């Protein structure tokens, strides 16, 4: 016995690439087609094994540095006639060392984001994934989401839509992190959700940190009297990109 759909639509279904109607149709088909039902089970196993067998190779630490060292610096072309590339490389390395030293000095003021807060944020993210818990105000319009928080918090969280960078704002809600009421901004990223928890902090607060907990990535930062903690199952790079968007705002 075989079924044509087991080799076609089943995969789009498995990958979440069918629209709502197509997905419902296939669900219906699964109930009556043992071939597809069995194939789906097997494909889910295969996917689970592929995703959880540590097959992902992260770039070695030295590679990033090597690339940064080799990027032609701003306006390097003009001075190229005067200096040999070798000396430019030495100068670039010295500059980089100086920059790293400077960054080290400035980051010493930064404090690691408390683990308890991170754990609470990841828990809050998990809770929000329950059906119907994601958003209290559903809107892609920052001018709808921002005023919604008025009167519900003792601060006005910065609300921005980053749809043009593929981080569309989906809405917001109130949440609680370690007993403190915070604003949760919800962003989308390729069918995944990102919670950005925003709370008021001291004007000079400088929390910082990122990592992985319970299979979710998180990254925390401070800016202009707010502390942010973003949590999601998207890649660490995606979270970093969203953080940069907030930081550069």
């Amino acid at each position: 016995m075989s079924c044509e759909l087991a080799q076609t639509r089943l995969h789009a279904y498995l990958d979440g690439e069918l629209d709502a109607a197509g997905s419902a149709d296939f669900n219906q088909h699964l109930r009556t087609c043992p071939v597809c039902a069995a194939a789906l089970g097997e494909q889910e196993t295969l996917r689970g094994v592929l995703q959880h067998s540590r097959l992902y190779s992260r770039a070695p630490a030295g590679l990033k540095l090597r690339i940064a060292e080799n990027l032609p610096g701003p306006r390097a072309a003009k001075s190229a006639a005067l200096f040999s590339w070798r000396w430019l490389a030495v100068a670039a390395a010295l500059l980089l060392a100086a920059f790293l030293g400077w960054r080290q000095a400035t980051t010493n003021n930064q404090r690691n984001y408390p683990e308890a807060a991170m754990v609470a944020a990841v828990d809050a993210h998990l809770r929000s994934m329950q059906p119907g818990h994601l958003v209290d105000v559903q809107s892609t319009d920052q001018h709808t989401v921002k005023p919604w928080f008025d009167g519900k918090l003792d601060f006005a969280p910065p609300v921005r839509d980053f749809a043009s960078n593929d981080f569309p704002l989906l809405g917001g809600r109130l949440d609680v992190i370690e007993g403190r009421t915070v604003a949760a901004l919800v962003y989308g990223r390729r069918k995944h959700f990102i919670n950005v928890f925003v709370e008021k902090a001291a004007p000079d607060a400088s929390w910082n940190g990122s990592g992985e907990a319970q299979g979710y990535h998180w990254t925390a930062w401070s800016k202009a009297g707010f502390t942010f903690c973003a949590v999601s199952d998207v890649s660490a790079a995606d979270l970093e990109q969203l953080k940069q968007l907030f930081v550069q705002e």
Partner: protein
Amino acid sequence: MPPDVSTDVLNQDDRSRFEAIVMPHLDAAYNLARWLLGGRSEAEDVTQDAMLRAYRFFSTFHSGDARAWLLQIVRNCCYTWLHKNRNWVDVDELDDASVPREKDTPETLAISVNDRERLTRALEQLPPHFREILVLRELEGCSYKEIAAITSRPMGTIMSALARARQQLRVLLTEPAPKEARLEL
């Protein structure tokens, strides 16, 4: 890939933008290169080369999906490398539109997360075009649209290509390794 012309060196702002938008996808770039090329040092060299290319052509990236844009460059660099160093000839197995049918009496798939080595071997045995599509989908979490952009294939062919890649992997994982088969005899 854009033609190999020297472009203006990026100014400070563009360089910062490059570092904020493209550099965070270094892991994705390296992972794809690693799976396409196999070796660590080859993957490092080609990733570095691809990053420098991306930097040079950053002015051609306007907005949108930086990861897909970078991975497209990485992929091209990888195939160029394979062509030069391994005499690899691009026979596009995916062009064959036929989809293998499920066997009438399928053997059961026997694999678990503890079989990392067997899984790695099976993936490495797949032709590169099948391997890359699985790596992009399962390890990198790319959507069909992104895979289509990265691999320069029509969006409509991604589903059947994935189906075939998965089917091939499944066959490799259900066939017992020759050694084990002998032991059983």
